[in-house]
């Protein structure tokens, strides 16, 4: 919402300086976004008189003038055809920045003649596009020579732009803003100009009616107007043009400008039809599917099903409350007009505007909810302005329907202000504040009856009244009050899963990974590549096609980020992310996942070349180590989970694993990325990665902080080595598990220390060597006892794997 200071002062009697007004606007909820004073830029331009003008000796189209700027006479070369002795105009001395030509004047010789400045046109001052000649001020300016042009032209009028929150349609008119400022103590609200107050001189020759089915009359409950005949449409007077220009509107002609002006002055949209272009009765009705309409913006809108239209007996004239049409609008030749002042349902306007994708000042106001009681005022304001500027004779008012009269009254316990804000105000202060905003307060007790003004559709309850009071009284009156502590010393608040997120990030970062936060949405191709792409996880309105699908995995985001890093020359990135993946649009379809990738040679001890030995290319075991470092942080050991080899197909089939807890729960996956995946994501391999679903890890059952008694013995542990020959497809974990299981009391650890594959073992065979640690508990083991355990290990491994002890 834009307006100028002088415009505000039409409604507000105030002597407060601009800064104070701006600050107050912002504090009471009308946030100032921009203030521009055109006078700032034009302050050096002064009124001057050309005393002599003679032809330039070396140029036909130039004149050499003597310009009197009030204090001295200067030689100025001028190219304007209208420059002549005696002309009063606008002079820019050397050193002045001239906005229209984007140039700062310097002392210059023009065709050999020195020029000490410039006589300016309107376009050079960016006041209009007129550059035919220099500005000619009337004789009235004669005694103003030497003074600032901006003062003479009334340009010293700051334009203020404020942000209006959707609850304040009343402040989409300057008067509403003035009312708020007056309430906030910045002046007095002037009496309201109610416009034309006579009955009218004749009966309108054009009739209006509402033609809307009974159950939908709320869409346009009132359509009032007036016929004004024998007007003379003209260019608007300069004050009106100046105001419209100041707020960025282009003056068109008086009849159009008047409606725009009232829209901004009072937040009251209106329309003025050229009555001679109308056929018969004008009515408001709902449109149908086959109807089309070309609006003032030059665009054709079709499918007007259910849209409230203003029509005559032949044509559609306008989209009610949104935009009029080209054909029935007022032009300079217009002599008879019909003023329309109607009320439209905010929701209907919002829906229609959105459906047609049409933004207008009228829609903006109607959809937020203008004062329904302003229908009559609108007619009268427009009538008076038309009569004042264009002359003519006004008809009687014509009325179809009745404007709604919201009669909202609230029972208001004045203590509510203190209860919600902590600020203690006297009943008088509360009552006066509300009254100054237009509320009617009745009653003298603690609880009063408050009648809400018709221009405040946003006020529904007592909390709204508290807001009105506190914003006007000032939020600075609210005293910071300590929130009582629930406990002397704060208690822990994080849930197990919240702690896991924190821990996961720090575990992975301590292993050298750099945490990235990548978009939750990825391309459809990538989503599909990683098992996603479901219809229910596709955005209907993605910001770009690269961000169309909710990610089923963190890996594609990390891999593409790594690819960009590599392309920039970063060596072997190690990236991780802890964030959500999406598997359905239901609540349990979102998982908290920790994921990481390593590229190239980015192993755990560093990457690249080193004098002590270069780093090898990463393998599945780096990814596995990262995964199990995470699990260890959550108290899960490798021995507690199962690893299967059926990882999803974005992994290398032979170099990947799935971490499971029982047959159903999948905790995560790890592995080298499939060469096809790497190719599709356009990254140089190898890339290894993992994903751990933090939500799938069961919460520890034990709540006690005690760690349990430590079992310790003075007896020395002893180790025995075994080498087994097994089939190539036997998993190491099966063998290790079998060995540990051979004697759960004595065997405390099994370390697989050798893997050998070679022709000497036979086809499809491998040798796995383990070191078994035995921990005697009560007494030193005898050789026989040790032998017995060894036999059990061999038997157990053989049973589980079919493996034989290697001879």
């Amino acid at each position, binding site marked *: 919402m834009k307006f100028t200071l002088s415009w505000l002062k039409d409604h507000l009697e105030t002597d407060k300086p601009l800064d104070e007004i701006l600050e107050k606007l912002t504090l009471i909820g009308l*946030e100032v976004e921009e203030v521009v004073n055109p006078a700032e830029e034009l302050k050096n331009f002064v009124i001057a008189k050309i005393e002599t003008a003679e032809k330039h000796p070396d140029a036909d189209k130039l004149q050499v003038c003597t310009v009197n700027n009030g204090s001295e006479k200067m030689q100025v070369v001028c190219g304007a055809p209208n420059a002549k002795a005696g002309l009063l105009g606008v002079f820019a001395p050397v050193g002045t920045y001239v906005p229209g030509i984007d140039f700062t004047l310097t002392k210059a010789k023009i065709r050999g003649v020195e020029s000490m400045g410039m006589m300016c046109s309107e376009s050079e001052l960016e006041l209009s596009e007129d550059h035919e000649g220099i500005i000619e001020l009337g004789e009235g300016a004669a005694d103003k020579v030497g003074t600032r042009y901006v003062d003479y032209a009334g340009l010293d009028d700051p334009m203020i732009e404020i942000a209006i929150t*959707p609850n304040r349609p009343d402040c989409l008119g300057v008067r509403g803003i003035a009312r708020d400022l007056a309430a906030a103590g910045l002046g007095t609200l002037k009496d309201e100009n109610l416009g034309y107050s006579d009955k009218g001189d004749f009966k309108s020759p054009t009739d209006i009616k509402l033609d809307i089915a009974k159950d939908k009359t709320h869409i346009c409950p009132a359509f009032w107007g007036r016929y004004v005949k024998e007007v003379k449409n003209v260019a608007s007077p300069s004050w009106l043009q100046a105001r419209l220009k100041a707020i960025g509107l282009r003056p068109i002609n008086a009849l159009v400008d008047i409606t725009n002006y009232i829209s901004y002055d009072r937040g009251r949209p209106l329309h003025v039809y050229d009555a001679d272009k109308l056929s018969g009765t004008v009515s408001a009705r709902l449109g149908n599917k086959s109807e089309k309409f070309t609006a003032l913006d030059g665009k054709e809108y079709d499918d007007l099903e259910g849209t409230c239209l203003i029509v005559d007996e032949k044509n559609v004239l306008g989209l009610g409350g949104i935009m009029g049409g080209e054909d029935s609008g007022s032009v300079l030749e217009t002599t008879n007009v019909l003023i329309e002042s109607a009320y439209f349902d905010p929701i209907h306007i919002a829906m229609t505007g959105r459906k047609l994708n049409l933004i207008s000042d009228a829609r903006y106001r109607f959809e937020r909810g203008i004062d329904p009681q302003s229908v009559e005022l609108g007619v009268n304001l427009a009538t008076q302005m038309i009569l004042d500027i264009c002359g003519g004779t006004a008809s009687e008012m014509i009325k179809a329907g009745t404007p709604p009269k919201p009669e909202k009254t609230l029972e208001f316990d004045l203590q509510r202000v203190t209860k919600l804000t902590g600020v203690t105000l006297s009943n008088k202060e509360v009552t006066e504040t509300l009254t100054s905003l237009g509320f009617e307060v009745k009653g003298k007790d603690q609880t009063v009856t408050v009648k809400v003004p018709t221009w405040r559709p946003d006020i*529904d309850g007592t909390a709204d009244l508290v807001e009105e009071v506190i914003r006007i009284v000032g939020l600075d009156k609210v005293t910071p009050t300590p929130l009582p*502590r629930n406990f002397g010393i704060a208690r822990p608040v994080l849930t197990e899963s919240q702690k896991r997120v924190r821990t996961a990030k720090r575990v992975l970062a301590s292993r*050298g990974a750099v945490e990235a936060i*990548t978009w939750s949405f990825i391309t459809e191709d990538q989503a599909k590549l990683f098992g996603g792409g479901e219809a229910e996880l*596709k955005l209907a309105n993605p910001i770009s096609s690269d961000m169309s699908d909710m990610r089923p995995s963190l890996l594609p985001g990390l891999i593409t980020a790594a690819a960009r890093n590599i392309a920039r020359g970063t060596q072997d990135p190690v990236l991780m992310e802890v964030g959500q993946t999406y598997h359905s*649009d239901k609540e349990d379809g979102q998982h908290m996942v920790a994921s990481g990738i390593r590229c190239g040679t980015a192993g*755990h001890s*560093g990457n690249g070349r080193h004098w002590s030995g270069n780093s090898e290319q990463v393998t599945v075991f780096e990814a596995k180590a990262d995964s199990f470092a995470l699990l260890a942080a959550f108290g899960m050991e490798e021995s507690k989970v199962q690893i299967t080899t059926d990882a999803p197909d974005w992994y290398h089939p032979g170099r990947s694993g799935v971490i499971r807890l029982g047959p159903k729960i999948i905790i995560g996956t790890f592995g080298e990325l499939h060469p096809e995946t790497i190719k599709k994501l356009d990254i140089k391999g190898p890339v290894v990665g993992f994903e751990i679903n933090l939500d799938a890890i069961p919460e520890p059952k034990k709540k006690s902080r005690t760690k349990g008694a430590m079992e310790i013995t003075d007896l020395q542990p002893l180790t025995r080595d075994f080498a087994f020959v097994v089939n190539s497809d036997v998993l190491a974990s099966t063998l290790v598990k079998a060995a540990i299981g051979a004697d759960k009391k004595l065997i405390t650890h099994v370390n697989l220390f050798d893997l050998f594959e070679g022709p000497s073992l036979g086809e499809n065979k491998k040798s796995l060597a383990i070191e078994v640690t035995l921990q005697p508990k009560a007494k030193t083991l005898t050789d026989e006892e040790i032998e017995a355990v060894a036999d059990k290990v061999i038997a157990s491994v053989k049973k589980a794997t079919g493996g034989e002890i290697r001879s």
Partner: protein
Amino acid sequence: MSELETLEKDLTKAIKDAADLKSLEEIRVSAVGKKCSISALMSGLGKMAPEERKSFGQSVNKVKQAVTTELESRKAELERIALNERLETEREDVTLPMRQSPALTGRIHPISQVWEEITEIFADLGFSMAEGPHIETDENNFTKLNIPAEHPARQEHDTFYFNEKEDGTRRVLRTHTSTVQVRVMENEKPPLRIIAPGRVYRCDSDQTHTPMFHQVEGLVIDKDTHMGHLKWVLEEFCKTFFEVDDVTMRFRASHFPFTEPSAEVDIGYSKKGDEMIIGGEEKWLEILGCGMVHPNVLRNVGLDPEEYQGFAFGIGIDRLAMLKYGMSDLRAFFAGDSRWLSHYGFSPLHVPTIAGGL
């Protein structure tokens, strides 16, 4: 000079002259071993008179002791020389680079760090952390928060929608963390103190807007909490978070459909070159929106606004991070550029705590 003295003198010299441990050992064996020269002297002992024997024996023992001491000291000396010679061959160029601990290159994203900082502060004030899904119902994102279907406020949210389902409903990507308010109030009984940090989404993109960003929602519901408490909590938060005692804050009236009264809060700052200095009233920067929870929202979640009241606020985590740590472009937060992450990220060992500083 007696034989004994001569022997002692000869042995001492030999010991001193021993060039290495091997020859020293040979001397030891010949001097004090079982068949040694000193023992040989003792063999004549039997022939001596008791008095003489005693005195001679003492003298021999003395020599033996002296020689032994000599031997030990020479041995230690030779060992030291040998060790020094070995060490001399074991020189490394210690200026060669070592492999660094991976913990030195790992980084925590500034958003995670700030998230933890925020959590620390509010945990101290007794706020627990609540969460909710990103894919939300229209109901939770708008309707229950007092944003009716056709209200212009809904258009201002630049919402990401999913496709309409057969039953006519459609899910949205939550546009704010206020959805978590609804979830908490529906599932837990007051008194409530929660914060809800998380990702939120708006269909918007430029230097200061990204389609995904982070907010932290705060909510306090009980019977007496008022705007004074809200103001205190936010002031305390800012002082602790920015680690300055004289934070200046400006509360401006504003409008949010889910709070009434509502306010926006600016923080005062000044600029020194490129650096932003928090404090003072030279410039203002909006950092959050807040207010008293709207009675309609309370009703929508089954709480009686006559009985319960409280406040809510929403802060942009990314913006807080930018303010505190001096990043200028929001888009870089989500670009995954390891140069940016290494520069603005945090060591994994730098865990924010109230005791140690945030």
